[in-house]
């Protein structure tokens, strides 16, 4: 005796039943609304990118990326210091946050397990990913800049590193969790120590995901503005020094020039916005490529 009563005639399933036309119309309408929602959402998102490209494309040339920043009233290219600053500060932040984050993720998944410390750290890492970046900026300003009396690229890098680290830890933790236990087992069976197992078996296996997560964290950090406003000051000539003297960044310059009434400054803002979007997109796309390429290799 089946749970369902068998139809006396197979065709009765397919013949329209009373009221079903209304239901069908509702379903079609719903699908239409859903598709509409999709376009409504995508339009502003795509409009932003297209507008930035349209406004900024004229600005992008070698002079724009390397020349010093002209005074606000002047026309003409020049965001070299900002490009250098973004690269320097984001690079320094990555060098601090990524190793620490990966190590932390290794601890959480390989050593900490279900222990209290690991659970606390996991919870706090999740909390930290939600902290507004302006709070990080405030913290570094009061804790570092006011004491050293030196706004510089390093202070900005510290603030960005605070932002990046929890993201990297969580991604690493999740990626390591996906590594099958058999891989570890096999390595132990062959006589490896734990650290060697992690280094030679677990990490390489999880590497695509970890790298991808790190690249996404870098992309996020490159676009941040609020933590930098408090901590790096401003310059009009490129400063490659991490500790010596203030610096500037693309995001900070965009913020500043967005409020300027001078068309020259506004043009430079669009150029900087396009440059920033390109940098962020390159890292994001790289992250996807890494995942796609390596996961294809692994499943092959």
């Amino acid at each position, binding site marked *: 005796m089946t749970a369902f009563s068998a139809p006396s005639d197979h065709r009765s399933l397919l013949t329209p039943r009373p009221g*079903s036309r209304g*239901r069908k119309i509702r*379903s079609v309408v*719903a*699908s239409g*609304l859903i*598709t*509409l*929602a*999709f376009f*409504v*959402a*995508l339009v*502003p*998102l*795509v409009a932003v990118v297209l*507008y*930035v490209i349209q406004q900024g494309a004229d600005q992008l040339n070698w002079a724009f990326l390397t020349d010093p920043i002209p005074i606000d009233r002047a026309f003409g290219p020049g965001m070299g210091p900002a490009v250098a600053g973004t690269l320097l500060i984001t690079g320094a932040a990555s060098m601090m946050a990524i190793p*620490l984050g990966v*190590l932390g993720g290794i*601890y959480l998944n390989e*050593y900490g*397990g*279900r222990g209290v410390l690991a659970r606390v750290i996991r919870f*706090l890492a999740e*909390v930290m990913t*939600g*902290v*507004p970046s*302006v*709070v990080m900026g*405030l*913290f570094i300003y*009061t*804790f570092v800049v006011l004491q050293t009396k030196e706004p510089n690229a390093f202070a900005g890098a510290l603030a960005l590193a605070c932002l990046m*680290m*929890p993201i990297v830890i969580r991604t690493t933790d999740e990626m390591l969790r*996906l590594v*099958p*236990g058999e891989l*570890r*087992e096999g390595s*132990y069976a062959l*006589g*490896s120590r*734990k*650290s*060697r197992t*992690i280094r030679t078996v677990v990490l390489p296996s999880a590497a695509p995901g970890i790298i991808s997560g790190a690249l996404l964290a870098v992309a996020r950090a*490159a*676009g941040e503005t609020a933590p930098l406003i*408090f901590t790096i000051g401003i310059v009009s000539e490129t400063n490659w020094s991490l500790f010596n003297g203030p610096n500037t960044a693309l995001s900070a310059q965009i*913020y500043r020039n*967005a*409020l300027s009434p001078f068309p020259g400054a506004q043009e430079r803002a669009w150029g900087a*916005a396009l440059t920033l979007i390109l940098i*962020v997109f390159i*890292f*994001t*796309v790289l992250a996807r490529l890494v995942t796609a390429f390596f996961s294809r290799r692994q499943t092959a």
Partner: protein
Amino acid sequence: MTTLAPPQPDALEPAPEPHGLRDGGRRRGVAGDHLFRWLALLGGLMVLVVLGLIAYSTTTKALPWFRKEGLGAVFSDNWDPAHHHFGALALVYGTFLVGALALLLAVPVSIGIALFVTEVAPRRLARPVIYIVDLLAAIPSVVYGLWAIFVLLDPLANLFSVVSSATADIPILKTLFANPSATGRSYMTAGIIVAIMITPIITSITREVFATTPASLKEAAYGLGSTKWEMIRGAVFPHSRGGVVSAVMIGLGRAIGETIAVALVIGASQNISLHLLGPGDTMASAIVLQFGEASGTYRSALIGLGVVLFALTILVGMAARGLVARVDRKTGAVA
């Protein structure tokens, strides 16, 4: 004497420990092993240390504000730095108003996109759409702000004045749409921009949740003769309730923390009013605009706002997880 290896762990169990290995003469590796373990521990502890420092440092620096204003710090509407009054109720109100507006606009749209990608669109269209949405999540806040200033503000200013005069006689709407901002800088504009910014993250989480709806559930619905929409309502939504709530909460958390784009388009006017089309202010925006010139209790108040923001994001995150757990328990859905 060797012991058996532990039973096969699944992906959620902690990594297996090496058991009963004899290392014989390979003592050299032990130190390196310990060193590696300590390095990993250090990495993990950094989270504790940094977060602890942030919490400690910001809270202690915010104390003068709480001491001066008491509960009024957050519950009194008297933000007047020129006369040393720092009651931030208007800023808290503004933060939630912008968050609410953003969610109101973003959630239906995000659910729509997620449904589109998982249920309506053909497979080949779905993948590039997902790529695009994730890519658009990466656009920095300051670029949205720049775009808003030069593209959105003027048309919105015109729209606001039209809407305001059109609803001037309708009872509730006339309050909501009174005093339109002539520059376009308003609570509503900030809500729109934040909605655009949080849509990708809400979409991405919701999409993942929808995608985990068991095929059997969907097929059962079709088997009972449902149309597509009825299947969505009957199978996908109930299964995903917890996940959608979680996504909404995460979106709210992001909306609360949005700083730069909001600061550029909200108009920096602290007030508690229902004039959605008029200028306003939020906590994060006030911090970033006023911090450079603040000192003493003023600075302490702004840091205190940061502490409040911090606490709010923690609360929202915990509420998200609590709600998800409760809904999951009720529906029996597997997380």
